[in-house]
């Protein structure tokens, strides 16, 4: 549990994640817009880069720590840090304490960890946000990342947000809690297994009949969306859209 | 002392071992079942794994047993004359198939035991409602093989000794201070396996039928 009181703050930090920065900036923009619309001042320290997870999960702890240390230095005020990714939030919240255990700046790392919120968690639990759907009727499926589900324990938040959208129907895929096969370096170190996993995941998502797939993690979206695109191009299957939850929410609710 | 032992202990002792906080280790009762409820649960569990359960009493169990033996076409029954139940059975010899006592060490009649005994009857020291289990502490009169080799095993359970959970049985019967017997057993149904394509099959190596008579 976060040590920050769950009162609505005036100001928050935003940590955009490297993947969103480079590949999915629109998700980050939308997340900031959602926060701003809720009356919250957003601070985006421009020197931020990456939480360090790729190196951490590859066993390169010194390298991960070096990068993490640079981030910690940027988020010093006692305000929440909002992250539009279960995986990067999980890195900061649960792995920074391990990564900095016994280091001189351990206390700082623990402090940062205690202020971390995954975006949907923050929107629901702290902002208690209420949404009005302005979009056309649509049937979607949700893929919750394993880190959001198991590390952060926030799988229900995305569902609660979508539940507020009147014209959005969420269809349930088979094997919903199963991993999509991304797993960061796993996808490149064990490409065959990863490919088998994403093949199954996309099949189950397609079988729902949904026209769009939403997730709170861009790693999963890169994997699933990449597979959908490939299947559309090379296997003659129907193209299927993927989108980050922030972008989806913003598109459907701003006037 | 073997060298291996010395080395293993050296390595285990060489490391600091922080103490573990043992909060939450002890048994916490979560059910509040009276005897009727315990009997109901026990019966459901046992039946779910294809054990036969018969509710009987001190007056009628002998007749019930005799009928069951007839219905199953048993030609003999391995039963000790030295237990409370056995004594009663031996007094009514005429009602039962040939009664056989386990009166010699197994080596003296192993072939007969393996290939000629149809069924056995044993007492139990208790039962467990939560899991549908019988507790057996085999003795000289009722040795281990009685509940293992014969294809049909009758077990009599006095419901006074039907406990809610294993932990309660152990506590109430004070296993620790009684001292553990050569062999203590929980038996929860007839022998079974799902090793062939997850299809459940009964009677793999142990008894094919378990018949529980509740008194």
């Amino acid at each position, binding site marked *: 549990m976060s040590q920050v009181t769950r009162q609505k703050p005036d100001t928050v930090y935003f940590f955009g994640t490297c993947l969103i920065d480079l590949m999915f900036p629109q998700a980050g923009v939308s997340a900031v817009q959602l926060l701003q619309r809720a009356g919250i001042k957003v601070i985006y320290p421009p020197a931020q880069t990456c939480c360090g997870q790729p190196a951490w999960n590859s066993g390169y702890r010194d390298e991960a720590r070096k990068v993490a240390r640079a981030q910690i230095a940027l988020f010093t005020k006692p305000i929440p840090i909002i992250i539009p990714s279960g995986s990067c939030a999980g890195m900061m919240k649960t792995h920074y304490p391990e990564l900095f255990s016994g280091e001189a700046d351990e206390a700082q790392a623990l402090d940062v960890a205690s202020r971390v919120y995954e975006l949907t968690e923050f929107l629901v639990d702290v902002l208690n946000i209420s949404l009005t759907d302005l979009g056309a009727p649509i049937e979607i499926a949700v893929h919750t990342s394993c880190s959001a589900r*198991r590390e952060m324990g926030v799988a229900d938040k995305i569902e609660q947000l979508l539940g507020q959208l009147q014209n959005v129907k969420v269809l349930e895929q088979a094997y919903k809690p199963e991993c999509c096969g991304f*797993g960061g370096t796993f996808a490149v170190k064990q*490409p065959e297994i990863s490919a*088998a996993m994403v093949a199954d995941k996309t099949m189950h998502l397609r079988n729902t009949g949904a026209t769009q797939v939403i997730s709170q993690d861009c790693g999963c979206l890169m994997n699933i969306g990449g597979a959908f695109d*490939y299947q559309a191009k090379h296997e003659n299957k129907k193209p299927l859209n993927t989108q980050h939850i922030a972008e989806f929410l913003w598109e459907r609710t701003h006037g | 002392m073997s060298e291996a032992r010395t080395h293993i202990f050296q*390595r285990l002792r060489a490391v600091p071992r922080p*103490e573990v906080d043992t909060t939450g280790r002890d048994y916490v009762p979560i059910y509040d079942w009276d005897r009727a409820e315990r009997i109901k649960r026990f019966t459901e569990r046992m039946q779910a794994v294809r054990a036969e359960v018969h509710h009987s009493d001190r007056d009628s169990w002998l007749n019930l047993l005799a009928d069951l033996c007839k219905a199953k076409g048993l030609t003999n029954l391995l039963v000790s004359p030295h237990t409370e139940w056995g004594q009663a059975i031996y007094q009514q010899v005429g009602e039962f198939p040939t009664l056989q006592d386990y009166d010699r060490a197994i080596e003296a009649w192993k072939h007969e035991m393996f290939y000629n005994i149809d069924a056995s009857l044993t007492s139990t020291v208790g039962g467990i409602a939560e899991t549908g289990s019988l507790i057996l502490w085999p003795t000289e009169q009722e040795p281990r093989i009685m509940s293992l080799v014969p294809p049909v095993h009758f077990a009599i359970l006095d419901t006074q000794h039907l406990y809610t959970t294993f*932990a309660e049985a152990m506590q109430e019967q004070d296993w620790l201070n009684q001292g553990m017997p*050569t062999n203590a057993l929980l038996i929860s149904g007839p022998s079974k396996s799902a090793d062939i394509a997850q299809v459940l099959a009964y009677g793999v190596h142990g008894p094919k039928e378990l018949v529980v008579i509740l008194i």
Partner: protein
Amino acid sequence: MAKPSEFRIQVDQALGKTEVRAHFRKAMDTLMTNRRNQFPDNAELQRLRDQAQVIRANALSKLPELLEQLESNLTRNGIHVHWAETTDEANDIVLKIMQKHNATWMIKGKSMVSEEMGLNHFLESKGIEALESDLGEFIIQLDGETPSHIIMPAIHKSKEQIAQLFNEKFPDIPYTEDVDTLTRTARDILREKFYNAPVGLSGVNFAVAETGTLCLVENEGNGRMSTTIPPVHIAVTGIEKVVEKLSDIPPLLSILPRSATGQPITTYFNMISSPRKKGEKDGPEEVHLVLLDNGRSRIYSDPELLATLRCIRCGACINHCPVYVRIGGHSYGTVYPGPIGTILEPQKSGLKVHGELVQASSLCGACGEVCPVRIPIPSIINRLRYEGVRQDGGSALDAGSKRKPLEAITWKAWSWAASHPSVYNLGSTVATQVRNLVPHNLGAWTSVRTAPAVADKTLHQQLKALGVDHE
């Protein structure tokens, strides 16, 4: 292009067998559903997991004392205790006991430690036959295979395959796919073996230090047969299997079968505390316990890796693993497959031999979520990845052996760039580096997916327009 490892080749072959994959999926689905049904109350499940974790962690914290207590109680009860540092030593101990009794064969109950020892193979080389009696083990032994799962060793085989196999090996018996008939065939064959066996061998699920009691969990009765009928019983187990108190047993017994196969309890729970006593009419005259180290004391020496030894071998992590369900047990090339194998095998046999396994995880966390003793399997995988590439010693066997120069340099460069924002924010710099990290494998990514595209404008650039505060 780098040559794919043996592991990747096996994986590739396994993935190609669609029928087998469908079979595994169905089997794991059943096991997962059964387990879920056993724990309708999540709070109660979590309490039980806490309890089981505490019991195992407590036992490990006192391991040397408990092993001594176990040994002295077993000895007092008349059970012979043997110690083996390596599997070779353990095999020799078993061989000597066999020789002492002039035994030319043995009947075996299920024991993963005996698989770890390669006991059957070893005994065979000495002219001694070890016959498996667990139905699943019996089947795979007939086919010359090893277990593909620690609880359900023949799970990879279909009913039809088993019917074929029986027909080949027992031509006198008519071909049948009827599971009851197949089971009866095995029963009849093995009954005679139990009857004659000079020695029975089994594993141990828990050993109670306080009373000197060996506990065995099973459904078929072959475990009881192996430990009751032959005049000599040899139990083999790892040194970590000890628990402190008799009262520690019920909670473990409660969570083990429920986590493993989704049964409330197994048919038999067999507690053995001594050989046949004077006046008793059956049971083995001689009981031996072989306690095997085989790397466990090394694992023990690291406070984080130590958690590996809490394992009660329920197999739940395997049943819930999205990797295992697709590649099956044999692809791992190890005795223990799935998540538990992924953390145990590289520690036991070293990172050089089995280090690649720690890459065969997407770190999805499904294993850690179901483990009844709360082993943080993903964290241990992460730790072993670190052990593989660290340069300062480390505690795992072969630490540092997986470090590759190109990869190390790339991570160094990445970490330099990502901690120097002015460099990083050029954006493309990092994208290039990301590509460098996977020079040979982008092909694999794009064989089922389109290549990820770098956005025209990064978030950094776009947020400038949004009036976010940049302090």
